[in-house]
């Protein structure tokens, strides 16, 4: 078994080269405009990958993946993938796909949530200024707008990000299906491997 830090480094570095191959493979399988955007995002994310890698080290004896608390920005729970010694090529492909999808998802949602909060703050500030009110009330609390005033911002934000969401949805559905499909293949492979030695024993 590899030490935790080497595992962490390997997990971070592993997707860098095969990620591009995976993404192009996905693109070949499911042609769509959304996929063309993914490699560009991947280049940026390779820099982000080290900072996104968790500092968590699972116990040595554990043979399973570990899932952490929700990320501060993306609200998605990061998964620390377990790399078995006798990992088959199919299992490796699945793990790398899941790792890459996780990073892509984290990036999208962190970006989305941060943009939302930033734009919301700007909206509140500009409206309060237009009304001639201070940013803080007399008691020192942050001044807020009521729900009806905020509704205008929510509507605008939703329509502004509509296209972005369309591409994300398409990519997400493809990735989700691909991951589940590979999980099924890996499960069948494992069952087959368990049955095969027994067959060899019975035949000899």
């Amino acid at each position: 078994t590899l030490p935790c830090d080497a595992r962490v480094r390997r997990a971070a570095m592993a997707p860098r080269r095969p990620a591009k191959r995976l993404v192009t493979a996905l693109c070949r399988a499911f042609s769509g405009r959304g996929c063309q955007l993914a490699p560009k995002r991947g280049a940026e994310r390779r820099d982000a990958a080290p900072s996104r890698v968790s500092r968590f080290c699972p116990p040595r004896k554990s043979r399973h993946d570990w899932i952490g608390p929700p990320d501060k920005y993306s609200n998605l729970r990061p998964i620390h993938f377990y790399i078995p010694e006798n990992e088959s090529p199919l299992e490796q492909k699945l793990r790398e796909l899941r790792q890459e999808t996780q990073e892509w998802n984290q990036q999208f949602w962190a970006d989305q949530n941060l943009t939302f909060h930033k734009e919301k703050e700007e909206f509140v500030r500009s409206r309060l200024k237009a009304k001639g009110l201070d940013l803080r009330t007399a008691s020192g609390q942050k001044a807020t707008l009521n729900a009806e005033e905020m509704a205008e911002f929510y509507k605008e934000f939703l329509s502004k990000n509509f296209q972005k969401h369309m591409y994300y949805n398409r990519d997400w559905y493809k990735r989700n299906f691909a991951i589940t499909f590979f999980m099924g293949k890996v499960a069948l492979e494992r069952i087959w491997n368990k049955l095969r030695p027994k067959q060899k024993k019975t035949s000899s």
Partner: protein
Amino acid sequence: MAASPHTLSSRLLTEMATRSSILAWRIPWMEKLGWGGGCIWYLERRVTRESPRRFLHLLRNVNQQWVTFQHFNFLRHMYVTQLNRSLKQQIKPKPEPAESPFLEKTSLDEAKAEICEMRPLVPPSLSLSRKPSEKALIEPEPTSVIEGSIDLGKETKEEKQWKEMKLRVDDLPGILARLSKIKLTALVVSTTSAGFALAPAPFDWSCFLLTFVGTGLASCAANSINQFFEVPFDSNMNRTKNRPLVRGQISPLLAVSFATCCAVPGVALLTWGVNPLTGALGLFNIFLYTCCYTPLKRVSIANTWVGAVVGAIPPVMGWTAATGSLDAGACLLGGILYSWQFPHFNALSWGLREDYSRGGYCMMSVTHPALCRRVALRHCLALLAMCVAAPALDVTTWTFPVIALPINLYISYLGFRFYRDADRKSSRKLFFCSLWHLPLLLLLMLTCKRRAGEEGTGAPQS
């Protein structure tokens, strides 16, 4: 006054410290309160025992009249983090010798210990400078001694929140119940049962049970697939962030397998155990919910109307299971459920506008708020009208619209208030009213069901 550190539980002490800190803010003479003073004494004793130099200047405050809130909070932090550190040392597994022949044992263990335990957590600041197309920059703040120990406490706390993704058989029933949204399934099955009971046919228990189980399985399957599709969106909404797939308690493969294992027997049971029409309706409803409603939620506001149809089909299935045909009574029952969905959902969605906007959901409450309220009111009135039509179609007696009038008028009134006021209070009132309105309405329908042999004034029965 303070008990020995070994007898009092750490939790109790932390609680005492918290309460004392709150009181210290309001009441200056802390040492006059026996347990509060004892708490200060204990905390300071523990802290000074461990790090005398740092806290010498604080010792001087002990004799003063005023004990400040900051002093208390500081002591509380130190106590809690040191407790966590000692606890962490107890639960941390002993590092095992490395098995790899290529790396030395001691350097491996040291490297692991170094990286895993003592790396200080750098708290990212909230003021981020962003270039238009790049990720946010995280600027590290200078860490002080106190922050370092608090960060270590935070890191330990974060480490404890990591869970092994191992499926335990004991947890499986609970996980599957949450995956299949068992409460919603129960509601769906009860509307199907109401449809079965209201149908003008002799009540057959075996047919009823088959319908009950079949519809329940179909609903479980549809809900599981819905959750399978929506993992990242559910993570970002408060209402749904504790679902099993979001928490990693179950793998997507297992969720899909479970859904298939529910859908196939469920639809088969309905088709061959009851009748093909009910089976077809069940299959159609699963398709409508998973392949139309779920993706449509992110594309267009039409999803609400599709969702209303999904809610209307189960009682129709109950009716067709009993009678074997899709007649006017079935359509009326479906219509009542269809109309009910609008005040229910539109009122609920009014309070979730921020989450919907951030998550990219296309809901009327966000994009067309006036339409949202108009539709809710419109359908409250439609409910009233359909209750009047029920006796005309020989589903119930004429007593039904009369006794249902008060609750129908009440929900219409709340719908009108929601339409006019358009605020959180009126939306909540309408939503909670819809929760009891439907079961009560169905119950009244059942009690006023037109019995076989009674003369009706409406359309002849098929």
